[in-house]
């Protein structure tokens, strides 16, 4: 296996892991609020979160590239803060992935919170448990399977990212070249043996992620008692 492929593989796993962890940290409190929110903006918020599901990744990539550019206020702010540019950097790709995989992490969590809210949370309120105790000792332990599902989905979905990374990260070895882009390179240069090797590894990892996901799904606690 080529050294560059190993680097791409490691980079992809690192990207997927960081993205899934950051998304969990962001989505758990937001999903908690969203699951209990019944206001008139609910459909707008839900649509906003689901947008990356339907948008072409290149569209997301295009707008993020514009945002990251040194001519844009956000790009300038980032440069002032860190001294580096976001466009064509690993950090930039991570930010792009956060948008790209957001619905895959948010939706299982919202569904999990809703299920817990309807049944167990109300029983705990009626028992007289405080808000903090309910969240820490009841809701979070009950949410474990949903957190597992959300992580597995966010991780697996980021693994397969292509268009968005290409748009905002380019194809820089060790920086932004993920497995899907390395694979594209091999096919373009007709190096099918390397392409097969990389594809099989990606297939195996993705399959393992989905097996784990369904294992978590199976252990989700049902409402039925």
């Amino acid at each position: 296996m080529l050294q560059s492929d190993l680097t791409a593989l490691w980079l992809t796993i690192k990207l997927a892991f960081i993205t899934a962890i950051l998304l969990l940290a962001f989505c758990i409190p937001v999903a908690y609020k969203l699951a209990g929110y019944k206001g008139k903006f609910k459909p707008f918020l839900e649509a906003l979160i689901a947008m990356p599901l339907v948008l072409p990744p290149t569209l997301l990539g295009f707008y993020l590239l514009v945002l990251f550019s040194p001519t844009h206020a956000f790009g300038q702010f980032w440069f002032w803060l860190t001294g580096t540019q976001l466009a064509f950097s690993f950090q930039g790709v991570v930010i792009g992935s956060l948008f790209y995989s957001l619905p895959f992490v948010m939706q299982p969590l919202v569904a999990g919170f809703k299920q817990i809210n309807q049944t167990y949370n109300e029983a705990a309120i009626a028992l007289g448990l405080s808000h903090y105790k309910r969240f820490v000792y009841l809701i979070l332990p009950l949410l474990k399977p949903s957190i597992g599902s959300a992580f597995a989905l966010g991780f697996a979905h980021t693994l397969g990212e292509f268009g968005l990374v290409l748009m905002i990260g380019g194809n820089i070895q060790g920086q932004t070249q993920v497995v899907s882009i390395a694979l594209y390179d091999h096919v373009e240069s007709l190096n099918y043996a390397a392409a097969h090797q990389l594809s099989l590894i990606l297939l195996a990892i993705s399959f393992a992620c989905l097996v784990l996901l369904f294992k978590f799904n199976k252990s989700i606690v049902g409402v039925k008692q």
Partner: protein
Amino acid sequence: MIKLTLFKALNNFNLDINLQLESFNIAGVFGPSGSGKSTLLRCISGLEGKQSIYINNQPVHHLPSDKRGVTLQVQSCPLFPHLDVAGNLAFTQKHCANRQTDLSEQEVITALELQPLLKRNVQSLSGGERQRVVFARTLLAGQKLIILDEPFSALDWPLRFKILTTMSNLAAKFNIKFIIVSHSLKELLFCCDTLIQLEKGKVINQGPSGLVAKAIYVNNKQTPLSLLNYDIIKFDEKYGVYHLQIKQSEQQLFVSPNAVEQGGKLVIESEQIAISAIKPIHSENTNVLVCILTSAEVIDSNWQLTLNVDGQTLYCLLSARVWDQSNYNVGDTLYAAIHNLE
């Protein structure tokens, strides 16, 4: 003491309740499905609405549920599925703040006979077992006002009477007040001292449970259930029956262990009673009670007779034909044979 003024628009009617509950141990709320019973309970506990509610002369309507000193056991209340039975009980005792009773976990487990269930996964419990564990968990929240919404609907009658007796004992021992909602008048009559009848969101009757229950029975053209208080004299091992003595009376009954083990009161349906003006032979060895006819009313073409057994009440039903032929008068001494007790 509980005082509340509620107004809430529901789907088909308005819940409009002005209620004052003075001294009570167990108060029952009776009404048909959809009469606003559950909403009333949710308002008292703080799960719904910000209505005017005073508990022991303190306003609580501005307080969240966990600060009201009230525990509500909602209908089909779930157990926490990530914990086993023992875990559910320990969880409640550990995390419920401001416990006001010193009811221990062991006391609750013993009272409700939960020892064999402790290690069980909550998903594997039967409906009746689950309701007993849920009730134990509610008790362990440690509050002095406990509100129960159809808590024992999945239990069969002997077990239900037994648990209701346990509940009465706990109410007396730990000074816990219970408000219990049920669509079963039999259940409420057995355990409650006060009864509230709700219909279409309004209180239409309130008072001592015997009186309210009788009014409801008469209204529904049914004969009330009779409840007799007794003391146990002895257990006759040869025949496997208890000798009971009616409270404040010399009269005795012979009763199978099943009926006694449910505790406290003997439940007698009107169909179990046959009356006669002539003293049956060997009546001292059979289940015959001497009583006085205190009133007779026509209910749906039958006659409902109210009998006084040394201060306690029996209700029985006679067909119009038997009533006309028997010539009973109010004040007569009659003999009530009670069947199916042994």
